[in-house]
């Protein structure tokens, strides 16, 4: 097992507020790691640090030995990291297919002259781009209209489109921010299956999730955050029994 992503001693503060206070974890190739913790524990902030949306105050973020610190989000994406957002961020007024085509932006080979002259290379790359978009929509099992605007799809379907868009990037590392939020039971079961199929493609996944059933089922390791501090990191069954974790979630008797 080789390490894909390693985060060490990550710190992030907004003014005086310490959002992340020394987070260390690593993700191996094709591994599923969950980051859990109560609301406001700093999970999404950690995602934003890894993907370049926030500048961490201190610490290291390495992807295959390359530092991601100081890179803008598009540069992080170019190194093979894709993500979804906690509050769906689809391009609402664009077609579903165009949304997924966004994932192809990095690998599509065509330049402005190709586009102006409609060269064979342009036609080929556009065809490939559309085929890939369809492929990933099939992969996530989208049932709704692919040609209409993304915002007209039902919520659960929009979640699928967002994952398809991230997959079309062909990432090595996929960060999913609460993918099960707002999904019903059936959809959650399908999500579980989808995550396993993504993993089978060789993609490593970091998952922020509140649904413990899903987390325990799908993760190989679980990292637990509380008030910006890491309180546990281990196999799901170990973390579940960890007293510090139980205290964070349920509160301890001594304080009650």
């Amino acid at each position, binding site marked *: 097992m080789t390490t894909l992503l390693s985060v060490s001693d990550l710190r992030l503060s907004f003014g005086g507020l310490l959002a992340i206070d020394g987070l260390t974890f690593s993700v191996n*190739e094709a591994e599923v790691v969950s980051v859990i913790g109560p609301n406001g524990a700093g999970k999404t902030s950690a995602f934003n640090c890894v*993907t*370049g949306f926030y500048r961490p105050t201190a610490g290291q973020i390495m992807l295959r030995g390359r530092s991601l610190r100081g890179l*803008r*989000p*598009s540069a992080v*994406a170019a190194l*093979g990291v*894709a993500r979804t*957002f906690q509050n769906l*961020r*689809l*391009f609402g*007024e*664009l*077609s579903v*297919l*165009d949304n997924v*085509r*966004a994932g192809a*932006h*990095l690998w*599509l080979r*065509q330049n*402005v002259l*190709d*586009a*102006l002259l409609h060269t064979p290379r*342009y036609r080929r*790359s*556009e065809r490939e781009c559309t*085929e*890939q978009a*369809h*492929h990933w929509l*099939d992969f996530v*099992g989208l*049932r*709704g*209209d*692919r*040609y*209409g*605007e993304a915002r*007209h*799809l*039902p919520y659960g*379907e929009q979640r699928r489109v967002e994952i398809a*868009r991230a*997959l079309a*990037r*062909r*990432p*090595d590392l996929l960060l999913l921010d609460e993918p099960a939020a707002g999904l*019903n039971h*059936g*959809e959650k079961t399908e999500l579980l299956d989808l995550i396993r199929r993504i993993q089978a*493609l*060789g*993609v490593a996944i970091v998952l922020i999730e509140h649904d413990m059933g899903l987390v325990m089922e799908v993760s190989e390791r679980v990292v637990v955050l509380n008030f910006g501090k890491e309180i546990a990191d281990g196999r799901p069954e170990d973390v579940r029994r960890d007293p510090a974790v139980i205290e964070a979630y349920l509160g301890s008797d001594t304080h009650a």
Partner: protein
Amino acid sequence: MTGVPDTTPEGAPEDTVRSTAADTAESTDGSATAGVARAAAPNEATGETANEAPGPARKTAEVRRRGAGRPPTRASRLLQNRWAGLAGLLLALLAPFVDATPYALSVMTSAAIFVMLAAGLNIVVGYCGLLDLGYVAFFAVGAYTSGVLATRLDLPLVATVPVVIVVTVVAGVVIGAPTLRLRSDYLAIVTLGFGEIIRITANNLDVTGGPSGIYGIPGLAGSPVAFYYLTVVVVALAVLGAARLGRSRIGRAWRFVREDEDAAEAMGVHTYRVKLAAYIAGAVWGGLAGVLFAAHLSAISPGSFTFLQSALVLMAVVLGGMGSVPGVVIGAIVISILPEILRDLADYRFFLFGVLLIAVMLLRPQGLWPARSKEVP
């Protein structure tokens, strides 16, 4: 193990579902009423079925339900689009046979140049969502560059075109680089300031002829009719080029930026560079329109490049439909020809334009001929 392997997409079953889904897409989409369809509720057929297990029975049911509409082929759709463009071009080419008085030719040539401006601004405002209120600055840069070079160095106007392209690209970078990092509303006012800077500078410098401008700029063609045809051809190419850019990788990136900059960044779109590219493309279109303008009037002065001009081009884009190529062409023709028809209303014309701008935003923000977000399979 690196990345997702390239699997060959599509099996036959999905294919059928896809083409049928397209039928429903098509049935809600009339090209002129797409904007209304946009506001409609989610597709009923696909609305609340997300939790149903996908099975063959369900698929066939859907196929039946969706098969009702007449399936238009890709070719027929393309033909429609192309027909609209060709019909417009044909109309422009035949117009001189209807009325070839110098006045009519002059109005039509101006309108064609205005179409090119609108197509250029549409790249910036319509595709990329950046409000540029000083677009006329690039028009001025193009017109003055070619005018100064042609009159001072006795160059034929065509020879100035490469220089104009270089100068407008530089102008686009100089104006765009510091401002495109800003919030969109700051950008609007800064571009307005730049428009004024260019105009005042042209007014103050000797090389640009000061307030009286430049006279005796050589033409591009022998007769007004020939020049009109030349303009129509150049403008048609410019419009086609803008449309093609809009459909390509960079054009999609522009729309991603317009819709959601963060999501675009997350997908690897370098939003700053992409915005700069839109800005530069707009600058080149504006600059080349400026060359046509200089050749058309043979004299240019700072008075032709006021904020009023920028606002009129913006109005054409908004009225026609931001992001829609046929829309902005129609918008530009309406804005440039209408005042000629409604001469009696001259005093109220710009007042009415202002009211119209508000009314369009309030009542029909997608414009007369909206951009189609539905795709045709």
